[in-house]
């Protein structure tokens, strides 16, 4: 079973987003479901701080021994922080996907357009076995 914390929001591409419209910085990672599907993560390609990103566009890549998966930006804005610990410890995405395994923080412009995200129950439904 995958962990889906109540206080985060989600995309249908299996990213999570922490933060609310009132605080314009959003922390982004991949979900427990995503890391389980990927298997052991061995390499993560992320944009540098200062890079503009667009909701729905490719933000980076997460590679396991078996395959590579693209990570999509859940919001538009600018990358203001990157989780540097992942360069040496990519396995944090597996061991703590909602904590130490976070990927980037994105600052959205004030009053910026935040696309629709799934709440925890909706994401749970998305990943429920058919």
């Amino acid at each position, binding site marked *: 079973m995958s962990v889906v914390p109540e206080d985060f929001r989600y995309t249908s591409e299996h990213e999570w987003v922490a933060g609310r419209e009132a605080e314009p910085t959003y922390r982004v990672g991949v979900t427990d479901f995503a890391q389980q599907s990927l*298997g052991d993560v*061995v*390499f993560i390609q992320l944009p540098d701080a200062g890079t503009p990103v667009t909701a729905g566009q490719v933000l980076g890549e997460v*590679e*396991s*021994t*078996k395959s*590579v998966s693209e990570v999509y930006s859940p919001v538009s804005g600018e990358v203001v922080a990157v989780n540097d610990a992942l360069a040496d410890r990519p396995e944090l995405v*597996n061991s703590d996907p909602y904590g130490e395994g976070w990927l980037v923080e994105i600052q959205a412009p004030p009053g910026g357009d935040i696309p629709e995200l799934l709440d925890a129950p909706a994401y749970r439904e998305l990943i429920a076995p058919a």
Partner: protein
Amino acid sequence: MPPMTQSLFQPVLTGRHEGLGAKFAAFGGWRMPVEYAGGGVLREHAAVREAVGMFDVSHLGTVTVRGRPAVDYLNRCLSNDLDRVADGQAQYTLCCDDAGGIVDDLIVYRCAEDEVLCVPNAANAAAVVARLAGDAPAGVEVVDRHTEYAIIAVQGPRSADLLLAAGLPAGHGYLSFVRADDVVVCRSGYTGEHGYELIAPVRIAGGLWDRLLAAGAPMGVLPCGLGARDTLRTEMGYPLHGQDLSREISPLQAGLGWAVGWDKPEFWGRRALLAERAAGPRRRAIGLETLARAVPRPGMTVSAGPPGSSGAATMGVVTSGTFSPSRRVGIALTLLDADAGWRVGDEVSLDVRARPVRSRLVKPPFVPSRVR
């Protein structure tokens, strides 16, 4: 026939794998474990390099060739020279087509002059059987026993201890095999470690798996899936048919000339391969390791010189690529144009989704072999 799901064969040990929380994937027409709960590719890989791991490789085919001239007949078909080995020894060999392309690579077990057991790859077993049966002279019987046998690989520096603890023979030399009751125990494998492959009739396979797993518990044995099998074999530079070997890739291109009995008067593809040897192969297999963080994947192209070299043309392509858990770098097996003027040690550029990655050509293995 064993049970099938969505037209995939299921190994007889499937219930054991499900009980161990395996993730499955289709491979060569079989539904096989890729990794296990509590393991994962990296832990399973480490278990084999540092202690011992167990793999169900029952997707591999089993074909018996029996009859008075069985060894002579196979010597006129398969590339390697079966007279280089004695009864009780196994040999790596190739099944080529008339054009010298590789239909399959396989291990043959020379039981006696009139009995040989062939172990082809899952996806090619039927093709190998058809070719061997099609040409067989009177008195030679070729029987496909794919679903009658299970194959369990026990691999790693503690593998001999594990077999002895399970009451099985372990002292025989590399690529030799002995029978223990109904089980054939061969000193072989696909990981580069000291190891064994056990061929057992399906009716006793479950009990054998349980016995091995229990005997290995004090040694830290882990059940290992095809994910770790792939990273382990890639670190050794062992080719995988369907990626590094195919009908379009000859033994000479793949660097497998050592598995061809060039002096034999007859074997499938002989004429084409002798011509290719005289002219020189147009492509050659060589290893590659990345010098920057990246994971090579099959199909990525390789160009001469470090990234940014002016006018660097594509020299060839990655046939297998992965992250090396032992070395913690990207590693690949590539097939490069022979006339592109490259040498081992050259810096080259690997095209990773339009990102050029500094890499170096190296001769495999990427990790020292400890099979003996």
